[in-house]
């Protein structure tokens, strides 16, 4: 895994957070701005609408006033209050009207006969009467404060009202009608006159009643309107000529001391000019504008709201009122608002970002700590505790982690302890094994020593056994008897004994079998031999006393030796052809000269020696007579009880048979024949017991 390709948790938490905040703040800002724009537009339009309405109202009021005056004068004529035959009589009436209707600048009547009477309202606030005389000259008089004709001021000859536009237009229209706008020379101003034909009761046309309206007053009114901060309004004819404007310039220019109408396109006011240009561009023909239109355009990058509406009074006035307001007038506040919004958004963004980073840090810190701790645990450092956290879920995670770490530690500790215990146990076992091994080694050594000792003992015993055997020459020295003895110790067993002693013509033959083997057996044999020789030397002839004494001697010695050994023993005493047999042993074979064998059971002649203290009662003896060529054969159980390979015993019968067959030979040959036959029988079988054989043949 490449860590650089992974996204850090902190970045993952912070980035979307900040992006969202950016998005939300941006959207809010944008919508706020859009709303501001829309609000500005609505506000501007509302303002323009109101201004337009006020202009319409005011203009209607202006334009209605002349009509009202004309109507009043017509009524007065009809009622006979004014006399068409005496025009100067109308003067006070006109004056009174001028006092009431201050918007008008001239009230007049021109008769179809060319007579004229009128009241002029001068710019300086004074009034003047103008009346034609009989010559047709127009006489101008001042007017005093009571409306009476004052001093004569001037006269203008050849004045015919019937040539004036205010007379011609309504006469031709045959109804009330406005003159076109015309310029006054003195004072220089623009004016417009509403004329109304007058018919008498007979329906005969009598002349034109007319009232003037100065247009300068409209401009004054327009200037009085507050349209935003720098909004402008102006009124113009569909021809493009200005009628009134809220700008400082006048709607006409003086050329050669004569006022001349000013076209909007010629205005010195840039805004007026631009607006007019936009309108003419937009509508192509101003005449086509019928309804109110609200539009917007730009001047030098600045957005302008513009409203144009027609003003029409059905008497010939057909004007356009234009209101134009720069967006900047409203935008100042909106811009300030927008700026505030942006600042607030930035502040919110900053705070949210900081909060986001803080929150992310708050969340990621424990996660980071946890991940580091996990890594540490994975690396084997189990002593990890991530502490407490105030975020519930994180805290649960942290506490779970702590518990798991604790459990891990405990498990590891337990494992370590177990391992330790195991090691201790292994050590203990090893120690025990070592001890046992040492013991075994020791025992082994002991055994070896024992074996050596036993071996040595056996050797000693064997040597004793061999040493105390009668020498062949001893046997040869015995007169009248042919004696052959044989003894072969077994590998392990042994304890056979035989001896042939001679004193005073008495030959004592002892044969025995000591149980067991080793030193004890050897000693027992030696003791037995000594005791027998002792008893023989003291010439003990009583078999019972002989064996009883011998038994007691051996028994007590065996008791002292703390031994459990004993022996069978037969004692044969030969003297002058008579053999006395006593002691319990194998059957004694008495062989007659022809080879016939008599088996003498010795079971009732004694008991084993060394077993019991007193065996006197069980000792007996039997006497056998020997003739020349007769003999006696004694042996130990090693011969009849020898096994062949099939565990068959050699047996006494076979022994008797081989002795019988060879009895014609001398003792040595007979002995050899028996041994050869026995060896042939045993074959490769182990020899379990000592083999002893003694042949005694009387010559």
């Amino acid at each position, binding site marked *: 895994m490449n860590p650089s390709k992974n996204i850090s948790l902190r970045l993952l938490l912070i980035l979307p957070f900040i992006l969202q905040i950016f998005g939300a703040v941006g959207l809010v800002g944008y919508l706020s701005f859009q709303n501001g724009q829309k609000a500005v537009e609505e506000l501007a339009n509302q303002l323009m609408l109101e201004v337009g309405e006020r202009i319409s109202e005011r203009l209607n009021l202006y334009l209605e006033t002349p009509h009202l005056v004309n109507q009043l004068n017509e009524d007065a004529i009809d009622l006979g209050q004014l006399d068409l035959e005496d025009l100067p009589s109308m003067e006070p009436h006109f004056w009174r009207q001028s006092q009431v209707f201050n918007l008008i600048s001239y009230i007049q009547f021109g008769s179809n006969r060319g007579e004229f009477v009128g009241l002029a309202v001068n710019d300086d606030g004074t009034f003047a009467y103008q009346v034609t005389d009989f010559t047709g000259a127009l006489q101008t008089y001042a007017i005093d404060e009571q409306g009476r004709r004052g001093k004569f001021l001037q006269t203008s000859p050849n004045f015919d009202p019937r040539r004036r536009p205010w007379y011609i237009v309504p006469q031709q229209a045959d109804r009330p009608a406005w003159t076109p706008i015309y310029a006054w020379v003195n004072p220089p101003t623009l004016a417009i006159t509403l004329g109304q034909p007058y018919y008498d009761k007979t329906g005969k046309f009598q002349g034109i009643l007319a009232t003037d309206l100065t247009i300068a007053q409209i401009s004054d009114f327009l200037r009085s309107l507050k349209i935003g901060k720098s909004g402008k309004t102006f009124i113009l004819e569909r021809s493009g000529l200005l009628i009134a404007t809220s700008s400082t310039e006048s709607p006409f220019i003086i050329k050669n001391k004569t006022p001349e109408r000013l076209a909007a396109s010629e205005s010195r006011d840039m805004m007026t000019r631009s607006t007019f240009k936009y309108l003419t561009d937009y509508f192509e023909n101003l005449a086509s504008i019928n309804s109110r239109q609200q539009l917007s355009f730009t001047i030098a990058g600045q957005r302008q709201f513009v409203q144009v509406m027609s003003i029409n009074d059905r008497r010939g006035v057909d004007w356009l009122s234009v209101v134009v307001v720069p967006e900047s007038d409203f935008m100042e506040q909106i811009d300030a608002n927008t700026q505030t919004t942006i600042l607030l958004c930035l502040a919110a963004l900053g705070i949210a970002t900081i909060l986001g980073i803080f929150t992310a840090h708050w969340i990621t810190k424990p996660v980071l700590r946890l991940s580091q701790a996990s890594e540490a645990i994975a690396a084997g450092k189990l002593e990890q505790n991530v502490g407490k956290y105030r975020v519930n879920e994180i805290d649960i995670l942290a506490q779970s982690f702590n518990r798991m770490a604790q459990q891990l530690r405990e498990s590891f500790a337990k494992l370590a302890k177990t391992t330790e215990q195991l090691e201790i146990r292994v050590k203990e076992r090893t120690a025990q094994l070592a001890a046992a091994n040492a013991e075994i080694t020791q025992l082994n050594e002991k055994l070896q020593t024992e074996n050596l000792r036993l071996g040595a003992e056996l050797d000693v015993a064997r040597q004793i056994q061999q040493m105390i055997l009668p020498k062949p020459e001893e046997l040869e020295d015995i007169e009248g008897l042919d004696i052959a003895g044989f003894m072969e110790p077994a590998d*392990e*067993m042994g304890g056979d004994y035989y001896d042939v002693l001679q004193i005073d013509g008495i030959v004592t033959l002892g044969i025995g*079998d000591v*149980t*067991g*083997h080793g030193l004890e057996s050897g000693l027992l044999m030696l003791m037995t031999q000594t005791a027998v020789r002792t008893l023989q030397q003291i010439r003990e002839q009583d078999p019972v006393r002989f064996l009883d004494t011998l038994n007691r001697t051996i028994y007590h010695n065996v008791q002292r030796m703390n031994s*459990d*050994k*004993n022996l*069978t023993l037969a004692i044969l005493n030969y003297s002058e052809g008579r053999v006395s047999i006593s002691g*319990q042993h194998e059957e004694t074979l008495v062989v007659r000269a022809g080879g016939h064998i008599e088996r003498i*059971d010795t*079971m*009732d002649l004694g*008991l*084993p020696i060394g*077993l*019991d203290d007193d065996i006197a009662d*069980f000792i007996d003896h039997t006497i056998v007579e020997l003739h020349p060529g007769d003999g006696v054969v004694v042996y130990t*159980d090693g011969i*009849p*009880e020898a096994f062949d390979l099939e*565990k068959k*015993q050699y*047996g*006494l019968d076979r022994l008797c048979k081989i002795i019988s067959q060879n009895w014609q030979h001398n003792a040595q040959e007979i002995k050899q024949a028996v041994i050869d036959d026995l060896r042939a029988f045993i074959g490769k079988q182990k020899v*379990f*017991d000592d083999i002893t054989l003694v042949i005694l043949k009387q010559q």
Partner: protein
Amino acid sequence: MLTRMAIEEIKDKDYTVQYDPESSTVDFIGLLSLGGTKEYAPIADLLNKIAASKPDQMTLNLRKLEFLNSSGISMLSKFVLGLRKKKGIQLVVLGSNEIPWQGKSLKNLQKFLPSLKLEIE
């Protein structure tokens, strides 16, 4: 005794010595030619243990013991001699005439312990 002693057995390749507590009989089977007193000790211990429990009658069945060497006879003789001091145990020895060593050796046992009942068939 509520609990019956299990049949005890001392066994080797050539012989089996088996004790049946029910009949207080020890059966000797096979050929016994162990090397001396030490090797006969387990058998001697078994016999002495039985005698220690003082049964009214104790039977040694030697009829299937084809051979017993001199050490074995010595062990038996000593056991029988030991019984002289323990009155009240009727020792019965079962022997066979067909086995050569038994005819003479078993009579010795009777000499050591006159109360011994020797049944040879």
